[in-house]
């Protein structure tokens, strides 16, 4: 997968293999440019990135989890928790500590997930299903079901402030992509992730702490989900126990998997996730710009996803077969 570790010749081949999804993405982009004048405008493009920053950030974490052949159903709940904790503590401890606490909370839950899956040897689906449910309860308990409104100024900077003409949210997205990308494709830990996902036994014999590697990816996923939640809360100066949830979970996994990271582990790449997020983002954006009716929307959405992915599959097949 990682284009980085390929010899020139192979890189060419890999490029060809990975052509598919990128091609789909470009095709869609061009199509939208023609379909709507509103699409290819700075504002709109920045809007897209802003809208999907949360999903994109969490998707980085989930990419690691999937490559190590894990699964995390709790990120929806963690998203909400991050927001609620951040808002609650921002009121009591102050803005900065609040925001930080929100992220730490996610990291902690992620750590617990990792522990349950590795030490507890509990199937990741169940483990994270359970923790997700519990976390949901905790967020409710913290907020007592009410909105946690933050009137401290500065709290909404993270979600609404700008730096060099770009929203902080967008900067965070870029940062997450770059950091996880480096980890995955350039660092030792990244190699371990691929190894553990591809063949845990061989990894173990190579002296890799399999459990630790798996556990860490869950922690990272928890962190990224919480960061996404904190940004969302900051954007509206409010923490909500019912934020995130299924929809968030679904968007994140759709993006990662559409990008082409395999659910069976050992394969995947951050750039794929980035492309996946862009693809979904553009589709939704296009629908809204063109004001396409619901019925057609859902049918089109399905069709486009299928088309995009088929192209990917097809081009990969063409290059792997002889």
């Amino acid at each position: 997968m990682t284009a980085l570790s390929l010899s020139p010749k192979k890189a060419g081949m890999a490029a060809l293999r990975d052509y598919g999804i990128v091609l789909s993405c470009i095709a869609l982009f061009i199509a939208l440019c023609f379909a709507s004048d509103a699409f290819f405008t700075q504002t709109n493009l920045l809007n897209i990135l802003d809208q999907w920053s949360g999903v994109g950030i969490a998707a980085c974490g989930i990419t690691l989890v999937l490559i190590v052949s894990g699964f995390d159903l709790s990120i929806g709940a963690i998203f909400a928790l991050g927001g609620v904790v951040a808002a609650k503590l921002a009121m009591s401890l102050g803005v900065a500590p609040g925001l930080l606490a929100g992220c730490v909370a996610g990291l902690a839950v992620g750590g617990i997930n990792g522990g349950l899956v590795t030490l507890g040897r509990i199937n990741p689906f169940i483990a994270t299903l359970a923790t997700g449910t519990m976390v949901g309860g905790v967020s409710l308990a913290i907020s007592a079901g009410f909105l946690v409104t933050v009137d401290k100024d500065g709290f909404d900077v993270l979600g609404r402030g700008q730096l060099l003409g770009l929203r902080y949210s967008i900067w965070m997205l870029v940062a997450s992509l770059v950091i996880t990308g480096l980890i995955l494709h350039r660092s030792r830990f990244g190699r371990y992730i691929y190894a553990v996902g591809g063949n845990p036994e061989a990894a173990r014999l190579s002296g890799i702490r399999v459990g630790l590697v798996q556990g860490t990816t869950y922690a990272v996923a928890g962190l990224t989900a919480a960061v996404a939640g904190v940004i969302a809360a900051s954007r509206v100066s409010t923490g909500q126990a019912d934020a995130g949830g299924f929809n968030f979970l679904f968007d994140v996994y759709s993006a990662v998997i559409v990008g082409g990271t395999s659910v069976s582990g050992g394969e995947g790449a951050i750039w794929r996730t980035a492309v996946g997020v862009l693809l979904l983002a553009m589709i939704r954006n296009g629908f809204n710009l063109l004001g396409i009716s619901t019925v057609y929307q859902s049918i089109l959405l399905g069709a486009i996803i299928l088309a995009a992915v088929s192209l990917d599959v097809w081009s990969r097949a063409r290059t792997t077969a002889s």
Partner: protein
Amino acid sequence: VILATTAVLAACGGGSDDGASTSDSSADAPASDSKKKVRLAYVAAQANSVFKSIYDGVNEIAQKDGAVEIDRLDTGFDPTKQFSVMQDAIASGRYDGMIVVPLDAVGLVPQAEAAVAADIALVNVNSQFGDSFVTVDPQVEGQVGSVLQTIENIGTGQGELIIGACKDIDPCKVGWIAGDAKLPFEVYERKIREGLVAKHDNIELVTFLDGGAYLTEEGYKIAQDLLQAHPDVNVIATAGDQMGRGAELALKDIGRLDEIKITGEGSSKYGVKAVRDGRWYGTVTYAPLETGRVAADLAIRAARGEKLSVGVNPVEEAGFPQTFNQDNLKEFPADFAGEWDT
């Protein structure tokens, strides 16, 4: 605001006596000559029949006007999706006015502000933009209108129904079936409802069950469990006519429909009929059609240059009492049959 409201009252001519007067009034409204073409976006979850009736109301006005086009933008029940739908709709620059059913009171405020900034005539219906659940007035600076019942109205309605249903029953055991107790507005309504009920010591809230999900199917299942745990309840009160209908099915199963009273919410076609037929005690009144009419009228006029900032309670506007129940049937027009399907 007073002025504006009267303007609306004039505009919608007491609402309930159909839209005829509405169209007249908007016809001889000041800028009647300037029948500028108006394009509205109706931003709501499509798979919901209350929201659909609201749309019907909007559409009714649009048809009468003739120069108005409406796009239905679906948001599902996903606030984040609604966030981007609004943002994109604004960016598309196609719309002069926007009628939104906010799924997230505060989450969407930034987009509400953006809409105003893009001077789109923005009206929220059914629920508000902003964190106050107690006012009908628009909470976003520069917003044209807000058409809704506050959680105070609804919570009070729920409370009155329980109290009414329990009248001269002592002790009166009540079981509550929520739609989704995690949703903020249900949490707020509960506070108000239970506050009211607490004043009547013959009433005993024996259980509060979550998960009705505004589906008859789920309401039915929960009612089954409720009746197992508390066979001695006198009233099953629900957060929606769908669950009310579910409860009715469950009671029918065990043939206790006439012993136990049911209350619903939303004055759906089914609910209203059930009350008229005496199978239910009552249901909290909604007026989705009126909501749509008022909202459309405000949006259109604002889009044509009127300066408005109006908060309207559609139920009052339509001249309905807060609840529709065995004891106040007569206060409703004889042809009142509810406006949406469960």
